[in-house]
């Protein structure tokens, strides 16, 4: 068959793509379940850190975030009958932004505040996710604003914004 005829080219391209497609489908069927499991495990670890005694966490994001307009709250988990955990993100000083979890007990007190990922300036914006600030946040409630750190105002303002959005969702769940 003449290599330069259009039929040959079409057939060759088709065969190559078909083989590639089959291979990809096979690999996907092997790896997709493993990936899904990993993701659940990673999130679960963080949730358990906040509520160690709870064994049934439910992902209620779809219903809870129906009317959420700011887009800063990514997921809502119901921790048994104890409270709720909100996964939020925002952009602070660095363009990459940060994500964190904030949990509220049913009575409105803060049950946990953990950072999932952040790339703020070390020693300045990163203080919004470390020791002293975390301890301070743990004493607050779902009605309070997040405190500001002078020298890290941009980061803490952004955290405050995201927390406010979470608090709004929390209010609708009560």
């Amino acid at each position, binding site marked *: 068959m003449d*290599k*330069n005829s259009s039929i*040959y*080219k079409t057939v*060759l*391209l088709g065969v*190559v*793509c078909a083989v*590639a497609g089959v*291979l*990809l489908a096979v*690999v*996907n069927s*092997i*790896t*997709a379940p*493993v*990936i899904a499991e*990993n993701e659940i495990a*990673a999130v679960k670890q963080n949730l358990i850190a906040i509520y160690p005694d709870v064994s049934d966490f439910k992902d209620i994001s779809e219903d809870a975030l129906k009317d959420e307009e700011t887009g800063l709250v990514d997921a809502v988990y119901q921790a048994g009958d104890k409270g709720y955990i909100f996964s939020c993100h925002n952009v602070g000083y660095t363009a990459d932004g940060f994500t964190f979890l904030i949990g509220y007990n049913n009575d409105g007190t803060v049950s946990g505040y953990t950072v999932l990922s952040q790339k703020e300036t*070390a020693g300045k914006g990163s203080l919004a996710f470390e020791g002293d600030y975390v301890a301070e946040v743990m004493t607050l409630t779902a009605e309070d604003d997040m405190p500001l750190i002078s020298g890290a105002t941009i980061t803490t303002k952004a955290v405050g914004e995201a927390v406010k959005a979470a608090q709004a969702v929390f209010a609708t769940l009560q």
Partner: protein
Amino acid sequence: MSEIKPKKRGFISKMITDNPVFGLYLGICSTLAISTSLDNAIGMGISVIFVLVLSNVVISLIAPITPDDIHIPVYIVVIASLVTILEMFLHAFTPDLYSALGAFISLIVVNCIILGRAEAYACSHNIVDSAKDGLMMGLSYTFSLIAISLVRQILGTGVITLSNPFAGNAVVFSVQVLPKTFLIPFMTAETGSFFTFGVLAAAVSGYKNKLEEEEKAIEKAQKAAAAKAKAEAARKEVA
């Protein structure tokens, strides 16, 4: 009188000069972004070796039957599928490495080294040679990644760590080389990557110049020896 032969270049020397990153300046984008730690460097390097060897082999197989005007789409399909398969495996079995390398795994598709070697070598050589070429190029790419990462990691964080990505990043060993007060933080950021790359590229360039000069000197000596031999032979004839 013995012939003056040029020095046989060792493996390491070849890896330094025939280096796609420092010699041909290919694949720099991912090099600069990834090389922040030894784990990332080794992970990325092995990924690239995997894709490079397999793509070279496959392309050397189908090149003879591929007409010229569709060879680029065909090669790209091959390379892209290989990278996607790699990405799926990494995501499933080494999730920490996957999130550390991030978008740069997908960018291996457009890493100039892969398509460059495919076009320059694999399409015109047999399987074994292509595979060997892929392996060599991949190894020297990994080698340069490790070189940059070591500098950046030591100067920027002071520790050399190696973790096992298959076991949830369990640390295999961790050595504190530089005390905490002597860290240079910008080395782990993009600034450091450009500085390190520049210095290492200059060093490689200097090394290559030195080799060239040595070769030239040997050539001159060889020519002189040959001329001398000719003169001797001519004298012998006359005598």
